[in-house]
């Protein structure tokens, strides 16, 4: 290996209750394109945040050597000064500002007080030439396409004399031409002394561009492979990314789905008018009574959007296609109609759109079905207490009283409150979006047990999950989504982590 420009040694980063990185080592040689791969939650983004100073020195343990010197970054400004720039999935540009304003935002050219606009525009032009972007520097960023915006981001990084450029999922929003362009540019920059770290889910892309690949899994470095020496192939990468044993953390499967189809979706496409792109394309699937159907896929594959588009479409996507519930064609105009049809959706992120954290356990549990416990619009407090106490017992929600504010509960218990809230609408189809994200092993097992109990009672469950083991352990059948399409349907007997990962990275 050539001289390393970056060496991260023994990096450990803990969040309350979770070890996100455990003794990770990461080495990048000068003038190479180094890809970092791993499943969702493997620790890639955390590692890059440690490197760029988002998590400052002292909040993690371990050592960072950059350009041969030990670095103790206290913030992004420090890492930028050292020559490290990071470009996130969500762009950090100001849409209402021009290209040249954006490029020099934060390190304006001038005498310290007054900006020298002429010089700014001239230098911005030079930067744009370096990234081969042929636009007027005075164009507003919002008027550029996503691909061009990304190039502006890179130009901005170059204007700071970047030596190490980190790109987090740069191609997730790009079309093929833009991707091609971007990779050509990265190879060119390599010739000009810019080293590049690329985080990507798309393995074909990784194989095409990487000089070296490092695989992370569960917060640990699994291996570093030399792509130039031909050590890398899709199957090798997948093996390293998922290579775990299934241990017995799932309740036994002793239920049998019936043959009655409860929910069926045909030729379902959705277009997000705000983002201006198609998010679901010709999706077909069905769910049987008493069945757990797993939806696997990587982040951004359209799983949550699929759930929302079915559940009354609150984000107002433009939808085409047909939805059948118990054989009848239905259209839901808002979540209330979906709830009335006995569909429930437990959201992916309980804190932002699942629960009302400033309200107590009982208020949260009854919120979606207050009519059930009200007479003429007046809520019956006794009935409410009974309902909440019932779910507290049934789901084993650990809280001092049901008058405790939900924000004070642990993640696992919050998730149970969220589940209780949706069980109270007595659904036939329960959509669970990442049902065990961010909760501990014990609570996970409890949630799995509850799911098993529910399907035995005849409920149908759609489980969206990024955790392959969970999908394999809980599902009766699995659909895999990638870029808004269903790329495969696997009966549980045939499903393996490798097969799912291959379909998900398709």
């Amino acid at each position, binding site marked *: 290996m050539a001289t390393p420009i970056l060496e991260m040694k023994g990096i450990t980063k803990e969040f309350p209750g979770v070890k996100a990185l455990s003794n990770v080592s990461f080495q990048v040689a000068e003038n190479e394109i180094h890809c970092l791969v791993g499943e969702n939650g493997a620790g890639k983004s955390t590692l890059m945040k440690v490197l760029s100073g988002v998590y400052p020195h002292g909040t993690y343990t371990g050592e960072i050597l950059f350009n041969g010197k030990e670095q103790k970054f206290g913030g992004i400004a420090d890492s930028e000064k050292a020559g490290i720039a990071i470009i996130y999935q969500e762009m950090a540009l100001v849409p209402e500002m021009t290209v040249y304003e954006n490029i020099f935002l934060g390190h304006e050219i001038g005498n310290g007080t007054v900006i020298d606009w002429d010089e700014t525009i001239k230098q911005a032009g030079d930067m744009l030439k370096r990234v081969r972007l042929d636009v007027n520097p005075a164009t507003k960023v919002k008027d550029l396409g996503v691909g061009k915006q990304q190039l502006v981001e890179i130009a901005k990084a170059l204007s700071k004399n970047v030596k190490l450029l980190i790109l987090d999922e740069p191609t997730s929003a790009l079309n093929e031409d833009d991707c091609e362009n971007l990779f050509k540019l990265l190879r060119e920059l390599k010739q000009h002394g810019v080293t590049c770290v690329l985080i990507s889910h798309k393995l074909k892309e990784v194989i095409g561009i990487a000089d070296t690949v490092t695989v992370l899994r569960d917060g640990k470095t699994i291996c570093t492979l030399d792509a130039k020496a031909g050590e890398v192939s899709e199957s090798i990468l997948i093996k390293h990314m998922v290579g775990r044993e299934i241990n017995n953390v799932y309740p036994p499967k002793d239920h049998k789905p019936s043959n009655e189809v409860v929910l069926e979706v045909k030729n379902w496409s959705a277009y997000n008018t705000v983002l201006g792109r198609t998010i679901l394309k010709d999706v077909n699937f069905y769910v049987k009574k008493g069945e757990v159907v797993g939806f696997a896929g990587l982040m951004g594959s359209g799983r949550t959007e699929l759930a929302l588009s079915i559940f009354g479409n*609150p984000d107002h996507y433009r939808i085409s296609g047909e939805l059948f519930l118990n054989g009848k064609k239905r259209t839901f105009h808002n*979540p209330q109609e*979906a709830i*009335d049809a006995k569909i429930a959706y437990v959201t992916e992120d309980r804190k932002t759109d699942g629960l*009302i954290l400033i309200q107590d356990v009982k208020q949260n549990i009854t919120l*979606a079905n207050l009519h059930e416990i009200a007479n003429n*619009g007046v*809520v019956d407090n006794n009935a409410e207490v009974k309902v909440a106490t019932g779910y507290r017992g049934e789901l084993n929600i650990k809280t001092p009283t049901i008058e405790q504010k939900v924000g004070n509960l642990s993640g696992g218990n919050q998730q149970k409150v969220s589940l209780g*809230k949706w069980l109270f609408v007595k659904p036939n189809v329960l959509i669970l979006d990442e049902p065990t994200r961010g909760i501990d092993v014990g609570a996970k097992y409890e949630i799995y047990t509850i799911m098993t109990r529910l399907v035995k009672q005849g409920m149908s469950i759609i489980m969206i999950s990024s955790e392959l083991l969970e999908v394999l352990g809980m599902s009766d059948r699995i659909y895999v989504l990638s870029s808004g399409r269903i790329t495969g349907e696997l009966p549980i007997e045939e499903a393996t982590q490798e097969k799912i990962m291959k379909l998900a990275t398709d």
Partner: protein
Amino acid sequence: MSFGANLKKVFSQNIREYGMYIALFVIMAIFAVTTKGTFISARNISNLVNQMGYIAVLAVGMMLVIVARQIDLSVGFLAGFLGAVAAIAMTQWNLPVFIVIPMILVFGILAGLLTGFMVAQLKIPAFVASMAGWLAYRGLILLVTEATGTIIIPDETFNAIGNGFIPDFGGSFLPGIHKVSLLIGIIAIVAFIYNEIRSRNKKQAYGFEVLPTEMFIMKLVIISLLVGTISWILASYQGFSWTLVIVLIVAGVYDFVANKTIIGRHIYAVGGNPEAAELSGISVSKILYLVFGSMGMLAALSGILFASRLKSATTTAGNLFEMDAIAACYIGGVSAAGGVGKIMGAIIGALVMMSLQNGMQLMGTGISLQYVIRGLVLTAAVIFDVATRNRAK
């Protein structure tokens, strides 16, 4: 735990809620001293209650608006404008008062729904949408009073709303005392004690945390004494005014809706987390229409109370009402982040704002200084709120 320790614990847990009562008490005590007792005389207390009516009803509506994460700046001049329309309806269109009042309330609802439409449907920020209303209603007041200037309202029934008192019965029994008012006060105390004991027993049966017995008794005694004293003071003057009755009814109804009904729950849910509310099947836009519509209706009521009190519609009616109402809400513990705030808080807040105004007027404080002091009190209230909130975290 000893009584002292209990007191300390309950107090520190509820400091935010008790803070405004303490502030009110302190302000009243200060004015009682500085005005040599005039401030707490029966006449002035009666006057104070009538004065605060039009702000109190606005504050009640504003409380729900702020709870739902919105704001309505238009309500001051809307109140003024609708007061002028009421005056015109009676003096120029010769409509009877029992038609004018419901008509004005309906106009208020329509005006509120218009703001609601801009916010919920057109997605215009409430600040801007209601500021446009603020300007427009200001202009409309001037327009309708242009020809006449101040419109004197001759209707006795209408003017009684802001100046009259409820009738009394009982003849020569207890002379000098308004017996009906006293009776209402006593009934209120009994009902309050009964309710409190019932709800406490229920809570205990469910195993919820309740106040320790001594604290509970203390709370009952203090509040009963308070209600009793106020009833006694008012009864020894001219009794309860119609304004007070209206404020109590509005507060009672809104408190019931906010705490006991599905609609109330939905409003707090939308304020607490609009995304979660939407996904729980609550139509956020319907709730916005509702809170703005209710706000408009209460603005109309405020306009009626104010015009009735002055027995006339003036060109400057409604000036800064919205600010007093918003200030009352913040003093009453509403959270700018939404989802938190009690109707009772709005009433206490209105009482604080009006006590300041009334007390300083009695003291003869210059108008310029009055504004500065009201500003300082509001600032202090919000600093206190933020400080206790942060500590709670």
